[in-house]
């Protein structure tokens, strides 16, 4: 488990008023945007618990949308994001729910379009966030590392093929998280990397057979 750093504590520079409910929301949106990596027809934001109860006053709705639009946490447009041309160009709605099995600050992003995808995440304090689920797979994405995300058919050899290609690119693996829906069915894998992989390496892993979704998710800047 990664320990927090001094930098996490004395930053980020951000638009107020709440690190978990505003900056954390922006970061969740940014990371979900990078995971989805396409233009959706519509996004439904489901806010849970404290996010639902106090989210409006904290600009959580604005933050989540700003992140989806690619704004950074200190972007001055966050305050008026609903009025921006970027926001007016997409369809979105917000739902407010209670579910005490979920984290106090939990959100689901439901992307509809050419690709349907549901991404779940938590804002865990001081602007730190974690994506916990993509569709029905558990993941562990905190935006602190460049990460390769795969959804693939659960057959022997996929993990070793992928890790060998990364090794050939001379990039070190910081952590690896796998999950699957059932033996021989769909599986997911998140590989956090020290450093950057090359375009060639990304092409090679993307072209492997048995892959359904491959994403290279750059770490969040702040």
């Amino acid at each position, binding site marked *: 488990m990664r*320990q*927090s*750093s*001094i*930098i*996490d*504590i*004395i*930053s*980020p*520079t*951000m*638009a*107020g*008023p*709440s*690190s*978990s*409910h*505003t*900056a954390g929301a922006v970061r969740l949106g940014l990371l979900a945007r990078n995971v989805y990596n396409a233009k959706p027809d519509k996004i439904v934001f489901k806010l849970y*618990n*404290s996010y639902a*109860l*106090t*989210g*409006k*006053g*904290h*600009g959580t709705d604005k933050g989540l949308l700003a992140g989806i639009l690619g704004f950074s946490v*200190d972007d*001055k447009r*966050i*305050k008026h994001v609903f009025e921006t041309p970027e926001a007016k160009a997409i369809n979105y709605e917000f739902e407010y729910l209670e579910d*005490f099995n979920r984290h*106090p*600050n939990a959100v689901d992003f439901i992307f509809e379009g050419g690709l349907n995808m549901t991404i779940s995440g938590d*804002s*865990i*304090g*001081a*602007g*730190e966030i974690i994506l916990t689920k993509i569709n029905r797979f558990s993941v562990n994405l905190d935006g602190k590392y460049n990460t390769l995300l795969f959804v693939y058919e659960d057959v022997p050899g996929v993990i070793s093929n992928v890790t060998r290609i990364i090794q050939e690119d001379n990039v070190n693996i910081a952590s690896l998280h796998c999950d699957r829906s059932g033996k021989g069915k769909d599986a997911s894998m998140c590989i956090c990397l*020290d450093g950057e992989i090359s375009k060639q390496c990304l092409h090679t892993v993307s072209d492997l057979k048995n892959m359904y979704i491959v994403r290279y998710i750059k770490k969040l800047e702040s």
Partner: protein
Amino acid sequence: MENIISTFRQLYYTCKEQNKPIYETAIDYEVSRGEYTEYNLRLQAKKSLDAMKEAIKIGLTSTEPSPSGMSGNDCDKLQKSFKKSVSILGSTARKIMTYALATSEQNLRMGTIVACPTAGSCGIVPAVLIAFAEDNNIAEGEQINALITAGEVGRIVSNKMALAGAVGGCQAECGVASAMASAALTQMRGGNIKQIINSAALALKNVLGLTCDPVCGLVEIPCVKRNPFLAIHAVTASELAMADIISKIPVDEVVDAMEQTGKLMSPLLKESSQGGLAKTKTAIILEKNILK
């Protein structure tokens, strides 16, 4: 295996063994974990410091109301009062209160601030650090050292519990900010390692159980005014620590108590706005008027 620093005890003994101040030990530790260089760390700290100064500068002159209309002119009022009437506080303490309000009012305007450790508590560390530095000609390098010292205090607490009102109540936000600020201040005043750690212990110990019950679910009431309160609280902790007054409960145990208190605290009092101040008669009326 690397030498892990996840408690204040480990921090203290590492500093002692290597005869280094807290900020140097903290930097060494971050560098040993391979994610930052000393240059990156100092640069990041300087960026935060600059953004804190900018927020104070704007906050001191702004009277723009918050989106809810409930606040936004308290810093202006306080400055006017300090100008015309005699305060029992010295000039640095007055400045600390003013800077804390300036920053936290900037925050509720959705202005740019530094979450340190969180946005709701963003006024406390900058107010104490920058006001003292200005009044005592503390060089920028020393200010960065103090901010890193504060960051190390927050980092160690955050190893035990998440610094979020929804998880631990306000003790985990403004409380931790106050402990960080007292450590920064004690560092700048030339306190030794024991005094710095002890100042953090004293500040934390005296905010245990502080709830997070924001009215209308906004980071506003009581958050804005809580920032100057806990900035002065940090000064009290530093004064006691500089007099070698010891927290009888060691700091790591105070953190344990804080974690336990956070867990025992009802979810109604942890950033859900379902209890405490948020459910008072007046709060409910405000809620009806504001969240239409």
